[in-house]
């Protein structure tokens, strides 16, 4: 067990320093290429640096998320940070209780193309036609709550929370009622996530 921890810590430090080297390396490359007048080389190095920075920001976001939600632990295998070039940042985490199929997923998309649609819905005074959709307040923020139809007895909910150009989607499956869902969403470190994705 001790050996396992030592190996994990060593690997963590290795990849941490590798990433740090990558950003500095890309910035150095960009600087040199720019000084030699190679604009395309500069551009590629800068795009790569943005990608590496997104990965570091994504890791900070994962660190900021709670270690458990609704008594469910993190499903480590599903922790994910990706950055599609310089299009934007994507971070996801899943909490799961395998014994009863309950789960909570968090997806954070920086520069999300869906943000304007959610904001438009949230700015409407009332929703007409969809009884399963409503606006909720999470502290000073507005969010879109959606109750999904399910085949089994479990409830399924989606909460979409716009934060600037970032969209956080919380998907919950289990015995949670509306009050529990909004409390769980409100307990997320939304201010910190917004700061990290701004």
């Amino acid at each position, binding site marked *: 067990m001790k050996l396992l921890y030592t190996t994990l810590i060593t690997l963590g430090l290795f990849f941490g320093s590798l990433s740090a080297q990558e950003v500095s390396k890309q*910035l150095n490359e960009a600087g040199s290429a720019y*000084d030699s007048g190679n*604009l395309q080389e500069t551009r590629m190095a800068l795009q790569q*640096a943005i990608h590496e920075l*997104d990965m*570091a920001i994504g890791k900070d976001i994962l660190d900021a998320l709670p270690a458990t939600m609704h008594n469910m632990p993190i499903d480590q295998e599903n922790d994910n940070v990706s950055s599609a070039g*310089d299009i934007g940042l994507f971070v996801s985490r899943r909490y799961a209780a395998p014994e009863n199929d309950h789960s909570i997923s968090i997806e954070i998309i920086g520069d999300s193309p869906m943000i304007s649609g959610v904001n438009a819905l949230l700015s409407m005074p009332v929703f007409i036609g969809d009884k399963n959709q409503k606006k909720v307040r999470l502290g000073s923020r507005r969010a879109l709550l959606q109750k999904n139809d399910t085949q089994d007895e479990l409830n399924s909910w989606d909460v979409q929370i716009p934060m600037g150009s970032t969209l956080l989607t919380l998907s919950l499956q289990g015995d949670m009622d509306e009050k529990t869902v909004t409390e769980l969403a409100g307990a997320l470190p939304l201010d910190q996530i917004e700061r*990290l994705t701004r």
Partner: protein
Amino acid sequence: MIKSGVLLIIFSMLTVSLQAQSRLIRRLQKETEKKIVNEVLGEEEKKDEKGRTVDDTDDRMSGKNRKGAGLEADAPDVRKSIADAGSFYETKDYIAAKRAVRNALWGVEIEIGQKVLESLPTSVAGLDFDESSDEVSSMGAGFVGLVIGRHYQGKDDMQVQATIGNDSAILGMAGLYWHEGMYMQSTDQPNQKEIRFQDNRAIINYTDEDGYTLSVPFGQSSVILINGINFENESQFMSAANQFSVNNIKNILEDK
């Protein structure tokens, strides 16, 4: 979906250029009308010390802005932005570092755009380029990419607008659209056809409203759109379009 993406980007580029053109035409029309009225009434235009036209007192009280040289061109300092990014990164302020890198990227893309503009002809089909309408825009992010535009005008009512898009995710899908042969399934429109343009596959279309438009996707994620207004026929328009060298642009953008 891909087709919609391609149409969307082409439409948005055309909209931007057409809006600019209509603004210019409206302004010219207004100026001409004013001159005619002054001539008929025998009034001379009042000029200020710099020779600029001065409006009457009534206009001055209208609350409309009458002065201002607009915003100054402000290209980011690339070297400083890269250095700033390094410093922010050292202090683990990744957000500030990313902002600085984006700033640097924006500056580099603006420089690339300027190089492309320098390579474009200054006159096409007897029409001179309008330096004030030269455009290079970059979001510092790949979803939109780099957009370069140049406008030509001057003879009769003919106009040419050249727009080049580069390194955009949406334009990347345009390449896929071509390679998948999807275009071939939608060539039932009489005012649109596929042609070869300087060894590239291209689409030319014509509408009464917008005139001739040639779209030439090239490289992995680039496209050049050439729009000609009030050309007599396709042959006259193509002769003007051929004054743009796709190979030159490819070489500058290094997108082959």
